[in-house]
């Protein structure tokens, strides 16, 4: 897990544990703080707004439930790695 995501480790674990129970919430946005599921929302903006209202500046997780759109695709490479070409 990348370092920034470690602050949301409990929330992500709760998400992965509960996900199979949420088939009726597909495409909605779940709001989780620590181990508590605070609610489901129709839009990302609504979920984030509710997160700040409930938690202030304390950590919370907003994540879309089992949606196709949950995977981000980039044709441009975002990660730095070793160069795959050989200098001529």
């Amino acid at each position, binding site marked *: 897990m990348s370092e*920034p995501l470690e602050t*949301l480790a409990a929330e992500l674990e709760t998400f992965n544990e509960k996900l199979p129970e949420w088939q009726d919430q597909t495409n909605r946005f779940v709001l989780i703080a620590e181990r508590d599921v605070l609610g489901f929302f129709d839009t990302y903006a609504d979920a984030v707004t509710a997160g700040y209202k409930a938690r202030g500046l304390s950590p919370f997780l907003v994540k879309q439930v089992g949606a196709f759109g949950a*995977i*981000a695709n980039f044709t441009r490479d975002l990660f730095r790695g070793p160069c795959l070409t050989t200098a001529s």
Partner: protein
Amino acid sequence: MSHHSFIVTNSGPLLETHIGISLPKLQVMSAANQTPPVPVLARMLVDTGASHTSIDQKFVAALGLTPTGSVAVLTPSTGATPHMMPSYDVAFYFVNGHNGGTHTISIQTVTACDLSAQGIDGLIGRDILANTTLTCVGPLGMYHLSF
């Protein structure tokens, strides 16, 4: 509507915008008598090949962003195995439209990555473009973006 027209540069269709913390976070900080960070100027690439909007990781520190989500990311180097990345909530301020208009997106989810070697500060992805009209006028080397 806010209309923006720019030249397509060698780096592609670039758009200058200001990035700040999201409106609900701004309200929480104000209520707590904390000074919110000033929005920062960013040179973004309009990228129809990006499903999501992404910003350079330098803005995470500059704006004091903390992750409020995670997203599975596929790029040419990940193959079929997605790379899990944190996501952040920010606001975008698109200024200097033709009619002097400013378009604000008060809550937008973004990922953050190192784009420093590419000469850009971020990618405007299809999640934002889905709410715009984007026209490329190739022979004139220009593009128009309307919110």
